[in-house]
């Protein structure tokens, strides 16, 4: 059974005008469907990557899984039990120990007034795992060594480190409670490429050594190809394609996936002209009817404009597209 199972997860935010305005101006209630029915599974020790452009809801999925949001609809089962029911019960702390998160910006996610020992050690004391001072110190040193930092770095402040080293501190902190599942929200997008390579290599090494399961969120498909086993492509709050990495990159089916892949400048064919796809992501407050991608899709027909495609299993992958289903592309 899969370690992580998300079933029809949805998160709607109420972004209506204040009550008085609604009464006076007769403004309607406005709901932002940030995540609208997302389902996936992740097997133990594997990596699922979620990709998509800004505003597609990938970070909201991350926040749902770690319990920062309560889903509007649907469920998230971790190791067979309903995670959100557990988060709200007395066993919540125990579950939070097993699921940890790495954030995007290593400049914002570390407290500038704390030394590294306090930052990395906090989860250990918070969960009551280690209370003894000297044992805590040894454990922090171990953690720092495991992410390629030095034991002496323990007494430094975050400002004394570069961006890549700070991200290693975040990883050490996330690993402190020996979690099984790590939710990584754009962990390398604030880093330079050579440093990004260091951090990605460390994350892969740790996965092999500790059998970690990752949800890896990124907008960079090249990075995704490097780290993931499965890839889910999101557009306006929904998954449009979910496939094995090899499949997705060798044979992308959904027109949006194709567009994303084509939009990436390729390093080794210099000067090749591409035809960039026209249009932009529509306003999520008033998404187009039917398939949300239809205004930008070269294969859209009347059915795409009126009927929203459901996720369907097609030869081992899941895809939501009328054109693929009808065999038009």
């Amino acid at each position, binding site marked *: 059974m899969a370690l992580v199972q998300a079933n029809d997860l949805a998160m709607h935010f109420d972004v209506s005008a204040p009550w008085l305005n609604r009464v006076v101006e007769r403004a309607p209630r406005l709901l932002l469907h940030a995540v609208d029915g997302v389902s996936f599974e992740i097997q133990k020790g594997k990596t699922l990557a979620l990709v998509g452009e800004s505003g597609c809801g990938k970070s909201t999925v991350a926040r749902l899984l770690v319990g920062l949001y309560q889903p509007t609809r649907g469920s998230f089962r971790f190791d067979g039990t309903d995670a959100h029911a557990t988060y709200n019960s007395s066993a919540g702390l125990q579950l939070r120990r097993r699921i940890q998160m790495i954030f995007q910006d290593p400049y914002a996610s570390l407290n500038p007034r704390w030394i590294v020992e306090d930052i990395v050690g906090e989860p250990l004391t918070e969960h009551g795992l280690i209370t003894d001072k000297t044992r805590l110190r040894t454990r922090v040193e171990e953690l720092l060594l495991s992410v390629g930092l030095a034991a002496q770095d323990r007494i430094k402040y975050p400002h004394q480190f570069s*961006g890549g080293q700070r991200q290693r501190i975040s990883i050490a902190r996330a690993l402190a409670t020996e979690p099984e599942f790590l939710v990584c929200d754009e962990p390398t997008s604030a880093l330079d490429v050579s440093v990004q*390579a260091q951090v990605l290599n460390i994350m892969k090494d740790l996965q092999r050594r500790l059998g970690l399961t990752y949800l890896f969120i990124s907008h960079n498909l090249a990075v995704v190809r490097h780290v993931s086993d499965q890839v889910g492509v999101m557009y306006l709050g929904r998954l449009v394609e979910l496939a094995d990495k090899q499949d997705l990159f060798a044979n992308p089916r959904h027109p949006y996936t194709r567009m994303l892949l084509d939009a990436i400048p390729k390093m080794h064919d210099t000067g090749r002209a591409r035809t960039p796809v026209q249009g932009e992501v529509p306003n999520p407050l008033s998404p187009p009817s039917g398939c949300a991608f239809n205004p930008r899709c070269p294969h859209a027909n009347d059915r795409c404009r009126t009927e929203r495609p459901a996720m369907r299993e097609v030869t081992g992958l899941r895809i939501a597209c009328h054109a693929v289903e009808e065999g038009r592309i």
Partner: protein
Amino acid sequence: MAMAAEIKGTNSVAAPLLQVKDLVVEFPTRAGTLRALDKISFDIAPGEILGVVGESGAGKSLTGAAIIGLLEPPGRVAGGEIWLEGQRIDNLDHEAMRHIRGRRIGAIFQDPLTSLNPLYSIGRQLTETIRAHLPMSEKDARARAISLLQDTGIPAAQERIDHYPHQFSGGMRQRVVIALALAAEPKLIVADEPTTALDVSIQAQIIALLKTVCREHGAAVMLITHDMGVIAETCDRVAVMYAGRIAEIGPVHAVINHPAHPYSAGLMAAIPDITIDRENLHQIDGAMPRLNAIPVGCAFNPRCDKSMERCGRERPDLMPAGPTRAACWLHAAGQAN
């Protein structure tokens, strides 16, 4: 003299539009003077697109800022020369530089929202810029503004011209900024990370636009970015910067496929390639040195796996290395002739 010959060598036909010679930018601090750009030299031919890549802190943006005369104090040009179309521009006063900026050098910055004034309609910002540099009536300037917006692919430019920046999406705003940069038909555009704040699908649109519009208007571009993919697709030549120096400069395909400097080679290998599966990415261990602790000799030598005794002692200048020029002692043999 040797410098002049070198510049001729790389640009055989046309005289360079922009020449940067031994440019030094320094920041005086309490702890001593920091040298952020250390004797960099390059040139841009008319209509050419030169890419500048490097990691954060390598000095890419500073180079751009020095050329357009917008170095933030206390930073200052402490040495070297910048020549634009045969005129020296690094020693001009504030007022004279103001006439060059916009008219002869346009600028595009990373964040389109902060480069536009939120209180003025984009039409007003465009006509103001046009009339500041070109002798035109209000009516003609407006007509020109509309045609610029059409050139940059803004639909319904006639109506959109009276809208305010907040009414545009990120990609559309960057199109407006490009129109603004082109307003007075400058010969050179300095574009500092013009697509970094945008989504990938929009990035592709903006890069394609920048390339075609600048070609149509005959402007050369200095494209500063950390994205090698963008460079590969857009530029004619590329300069790789490291710790305030140019490590390698040459034709784009040569630098990408056969980098001559170990740093460029490491940088190319560290980029995850969408077309290839690799178990582990190549990594350059360590980090770029801080400005107050730049190593003696070649700045890259402590991280370089091909480092020799000479590298820790003597600083290499750019020297011919096949089709490119690299600042690396590995190519010292080629320097003799």
